[in-house]
């Protein structure tokens, strides 16, 4: 009975590891759909050999997933969920037209690194965002630099590069709707989303 339980845990871990590796694989380059174009709307689905990124393993936390993270008790579960929520709710912020990691962001990133080290099978998407004052296309590039700054900082703290995916939303996904410095300051951010 006891041995059976361990088997489930090991199989679960292998499954999750395999999943994480496939997620962090470098995207396939080159033609994805062979010569010519597929029908209308084609290309929106799952490109072969790549992740969709949409809600993979997200959603309901099953016990298997928690056990794969080494969580076996309710107390550990509560602690994990609390830290996960904190991880995802705590953005780091940037100055206008800057992708430089500010002093106030460093302790937050350190906390994120500790969390990622504690749960080494987790992967994360780092989103770069901007305020509305720049131009839309330049902000996409600036948001990428912000995500990259956070990525580089976490790599320097020892997090494996392939655990972290980056994306930029420029000014297209603001969290504060106002047109004042208080809102802009909130929108100039890097946001972190956990996948497990």
């Amino acid at each position, binding site marked *: 009975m006891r041995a059976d339980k361990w088997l489930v845990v090991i199989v679960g871990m292998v499954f999750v590891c395999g999943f994480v590796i496939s997620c962090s694989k*470098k*995207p*396939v*380059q*080159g*033609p*994805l*759909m062979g*010569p010519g*174009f*597929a*029908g*209308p*709307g*084609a*290309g*929106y689905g799952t*490109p072969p050999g*790549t*992740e*969709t*990124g*949409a809600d993979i393993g997200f959603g309901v936390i099953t016990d298997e997933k928690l056990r794969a993270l080494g969580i076996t008790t309710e107390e550990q579960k509560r602690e994990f969920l609390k830290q996960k929520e904190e991880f995802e709710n705590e953005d780091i912020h940037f100055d206008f*037209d800057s992708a430089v990691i500010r002093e106030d962001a460093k302790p937050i990133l350190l906390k994120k690194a500790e969390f990622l080290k504690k749960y080494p099978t987790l992967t994360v*998407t780092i*989103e770069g965002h901007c305020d509305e004052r*720049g*131009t*839309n*296309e*330049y902000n*996409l*590039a*600036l948001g*990428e*630099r912000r*995500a*990259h700054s956070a*990525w580089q900082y976490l790599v320097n703290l020892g997090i494996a*590069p392939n655990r*972290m*995916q*980056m*994306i*930029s*939303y*420029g000014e*297209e996904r603001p969290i504060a709707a106002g047109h004042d410095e208080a809102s802009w300051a909130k929108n100039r951010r890097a946001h972190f*989303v956990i996948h497990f």
Partner: protein
Amino acid sequence: MKRRFKQFVTLIGMVVTFGGILVWQAYGADRVYLDITDPSFRKLPIAVPGFRVDGGSSGIGDDLLSTTKKDLQISGIFQVLDSRAFFSDPQKLGVTAAEIDFGQFKQVGAEYLIRGSYSTDGQNIHLELRFFDVVGRKMLLGKAYDGKIQDRKLMIHRFVDEILKLITGEVGVFSTKIAFVNKEGKNSRIYMVDFDGSNPTLLTPREELAMSPSWSSDGRFIAYIGFRGNRTALSILDVSSRAVRDCFLGGVISSARFNPQKDLIAAAISRPDGNPEIVGVDLAGNVTGRLVSGGWNTKTSPSWSPDGRKIAYVSNETGSPQIYVYDVSTGSKRRITFSGDYNTSPSWSPKGDWIAYSGLVEGHHHIFIVNSETLSVMQITNGSYNNEAPTWSPDGRMIAFQSNRSGRNAIWVMLRNGADARLLTEMPGDQILPSWSPRFQ
């Protein structure tokens, strides 16, 4: 006026019978075109009386008339005279040079005249359009069109295109389209409209977030940035079939522009293990090579010169976004904007002489044009609102851009000197990032 007219064209009207359809063609010799970019250029007064109905339904006469007038107004060349000045009943007014009383139009200040007549039969229309020189009392251009009633605007666009060719030496852009991103609710999707804002068409119904559309040189494809979960794709849309190909390039893609000469896309990309760079990508999604690279700083918004040899782009290597020109063949780089500390969105004119961009002035973005050789700069929009993301008409006479002057973002079109700004997109949502199509063959 007489003297100028003699300079501009010597015409012989000819009547040619073609497949049962009468087509009048005007041929010119030693033609001298009007330079409409000359600052002293005065718009040409033109009269457009109501269309004559020669049979069938008369219900579309107003639409034909308003479409013709709008095209002429948008051209920036004509001043359309108030039709209340022509007292005659359009049904009784002649349509050929022999029938027309030119003195009547001369009296109200018209130098040119368009007469239209049509008949309908079920879903079909026969439309005749004639363009006259009032002073010279002769026809300069005459065309007959047969087709579906629903294509009537297209017939008028073609006719006005030909009038522009007659006067400026270059076909107009009335059959072109403008693609852009419409932000409505949670979705940002790509639409296109005709040059006059009509026929808004959703091109990417399944996208949630799409950015930076760019037309291919033949108008078959639109490249854009497609958001796929937590990754960006260089997406290539086949405009006629609406099929989409996603090219994943292993990094975050921030912008893409088609080469004006061939099916090659300049894409700005940053991969985790490298610096931001601009690479060439073919239609199959293969990276053909690096175009601009080097340094940690951003590099985005590539805009090709018309010969496809140079790329204007934005870099913040000095600490603020500025516009640079990179010569792909020699590898030399030149900074071209020196005033202001936020210059973005370069767009190279189809003639190669100017690069339009948006620059931040006292808290607002405005459209500028900079001469690609002399670097002389002109600011062409003003006011306390934002004007961004310029794109040129294929004849280089107009610029479409996004502006929030009406309280929301919308696409506007103006002449290259900043005059005659008009709202292009009258639809719900915010419209941003326009891209002007080439002329369709």
